[in-house]
């Protein structure tokens, strides 16, 4: 805890945590709406806004700059929407184009600023690549206020955003103005992105929006837990990244946060229960050897079901043979099943499932019903 008594670190960690929370929560909706790359486009498109805000006001006050950035990002999404609606240019091209063109205009404006005699422009570049170490108390205060406003609005409009994300046509049939909701959501996303520009920079902002949601999505199938998890992952990665980069020299904060986030994504991709790669691999492995055995066990189970109360009632191989496809070596299969304790020989040439075998068969049926439904 001695760590957090360091003033700079406390400010940076707090700022990164706020950013992680806002980006994680809003990113979840963007992720579900297949708008993951909007964050990337917004952050690049914010650059001319930053430059114009500085050119007009001559101030680097965090709120002024953030307002300019947000306006430019907002304009860029409007341009994307217009192009997609009114031409045949596909969505991803429109997004990439507005990202790069706005960024180019921003670069032109930055060179204009650089030529001005007053040296006050120093530090505007920190928005490009992020410079968490230069965060000040007032920055973090502004970030926290905006982040809290974002989360509050998200909470108030929870139901609407949920509807918008899963079934926007249904939403419009309920009389909700989908266009207005969509615009409001984009505005919140713009704010979340703008919060992060100083900390992680335009390039890495994309990961702050996408990665927490992607990791959380692996762990749950429900919206509320997903948003909560994504927020938690965002905060965790932000704070961990900030702490790591302050402990290890020459480790820039933004990229460290992104790598922590990427690791969380990788871990959840591999280890997520019921969905992850490891789970998939194990269940495939379990399925493979049993595939040849299960049918025979199931047949024996089905036959035994016809004699309730007589667990020792056996059935002959001849019966099983008529039920199995040609070419199945029943002697070998039954021997294998017996060695696993699933069936037993009750008499010469007569077989019945054991109690374990009956339980296995019941479980198999239940899992089949589950997949079917």
């Amino acid at each position, binding site marked *: 805890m001695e760590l957090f008594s360091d003033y700079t670190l406390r400010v940076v960690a707090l700022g990164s945590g706020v950013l992680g929370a806002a980006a994680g929560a809003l990113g979840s909706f963007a992720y579900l709406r297949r708008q993951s790359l909007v964050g990337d486009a917004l952050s690049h498109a914010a650059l001319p806004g930053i430059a114009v805000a500085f050119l007009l006001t001559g101030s680097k006050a965090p709120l002024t700059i953030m307002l300019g950035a947000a306006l430019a990002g907002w304009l860029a999404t409007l341009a994307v929407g217009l192009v997609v609606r009114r031409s045949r*240019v596909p969505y991803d091209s429109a997004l990439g184009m507005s990202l790069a063109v706005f*960024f180019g205009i921003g670069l032109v404006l930055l060179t204009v600023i650089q030529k001005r005699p007053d040296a006050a422009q120093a530090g505007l570049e920190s928005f*490009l690549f992020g410079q968490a170490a230069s965060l000040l108390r007032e920055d973090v205060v502004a970030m926290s206020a905006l982040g809290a406003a974002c989360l509050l609005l998200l909470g108030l409009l929870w139901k609407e955003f949920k509807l918008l994300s899963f079934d926007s046509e249904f939403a419009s049939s309920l009389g909700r103005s989908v266009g207005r909701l969509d615009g409001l959501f984009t505005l919140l996303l713009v704010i979340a992105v703008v919060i992060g520009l100083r900390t992680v920079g335009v390039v890495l902002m994309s990961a702050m929006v996408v990665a927490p949601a992607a990791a959380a999505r692996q762990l749950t199938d429900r919206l509320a837990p997903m948003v909560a998890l994504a927020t938690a992952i965002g905060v965790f990665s932000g704070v961990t990244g900030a702490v790591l980069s302050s402990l290890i020299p020459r480790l820039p904060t933004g990229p460290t946060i992104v790598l922590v986030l990427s690791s969380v994504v990788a871990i959840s991709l591999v280890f997520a229960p019921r969905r*992850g790669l490891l789970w998939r691999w194990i269940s495939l492995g379990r399925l493979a050897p049993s595939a040849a055995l299960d049918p025979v066990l199931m047949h024996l189970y089905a036959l035994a079901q016809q004699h309730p109360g007589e667990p020792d009632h056996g059935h002959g191989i001849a019966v099983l043979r008529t039920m199995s496809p040609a070419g199945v070596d029943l002697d070998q299969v039954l021997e294998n099943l017996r060695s696993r304790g699933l069936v037993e020989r009750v008499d010469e040439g007569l077989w019945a499932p054991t109690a374990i075998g009956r339980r296995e068969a019941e479980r198999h049926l239940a899992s089949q019903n589950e997949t079917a439904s």
Partner: protein
Amino acid sequence: MTAELEILVIAMVTAVAAALPGAYLVLRRTAMVSDAISHAILPGIVVAFFLTEDLNSPLLLIAAAATGVLTVVLIEALIRSRLIPEDASIGIVFPALFSIGVILISRAASDVHLDTDSVLLGELAFAPFHRLTVAGVDLGPAALWSMGTILVLNVGLILLAWKELKLATVDSSLAALLGFQPVVVHYGLMTMVSVTAVGAFDAVGSILVVALMIAPPATAYLLAERLAPMVVVAAVVAAVGAALGWAFALALDVSIAGSIAAASGLLFAAAFLMAPRRGLLAQARRRQGQRLDFAVRMLVVHLFHHEGTPEASEECRVAGLHRHLGWSESWTRRVVGKAAELELVERNGEQVLPTADGRRLADDAVIGFGA
């Protein structure tokens, strides 16, 4: 050649070289992959730079291109796992690779000349200072040679694999069915994109490569209806955009790469507004024409309907038409004028009457509705 002219030539060659693979990216709806590749090549460049300590080494190009292809492989592996959708896969992979690049630079390269700014932003103005000299003879800017080579390679590959690229882009299932291996074509295209992005990064910077790869082909997509004209128009638009941006930057002494991106955006905006068939103006004109056409039919049907009935004198009076049809007076005048011009109606004193052509049209229109 003066330094300014050299910059212009480098800019135009780079823009055309980027627009060629870009046309296919736009058509295949994988434009954002260019964004991912152009950022994710950073670690490749850094590692190769550590090994060679030479920013102009060809190894840089190869390593970065390999990283670009690796980026595509990673993105597609994520998509194929069906755990993460396509857009999110892109948004996760390239920041991770980019972060590795930035961390490598700041961990190890604080004393060598390689900074993130130059990779991201590029500086075309410095390009003429890196000369290619062989045996003491100055052969011109190195960037011109590298981008020229890439341009020739791109043109050659596209001509060579024209049919395959076209089929894999337009109908990849059919391409697979015919044995054209769309996967091979896909990775070939991605390699082309990577090599082009790497070649362009120190001239225009990685973010503006995206502008050069997407904006001119998207502009061409609004202007051309077939693939071959689209690719050619994309190349022309790219060259014009580069020249415009260059002139603007020179006049105002601002970032050349930034102005080229802005100029490309401007050209797209112009096409978006004014493209002969697909522009906003053409759309508005077409809608206006349809509206007028429909109104003329309405008018003729109205006149036809009341012709020879007792109230015809009132219903077909010029001065009263706008009331009966619920139109404004000026619009009514315009519609009557248009109908008269088409010889569908004629004036008879205070009355407007359908001509023989007009009656036939109204009859068709009404029967058409009834049927």
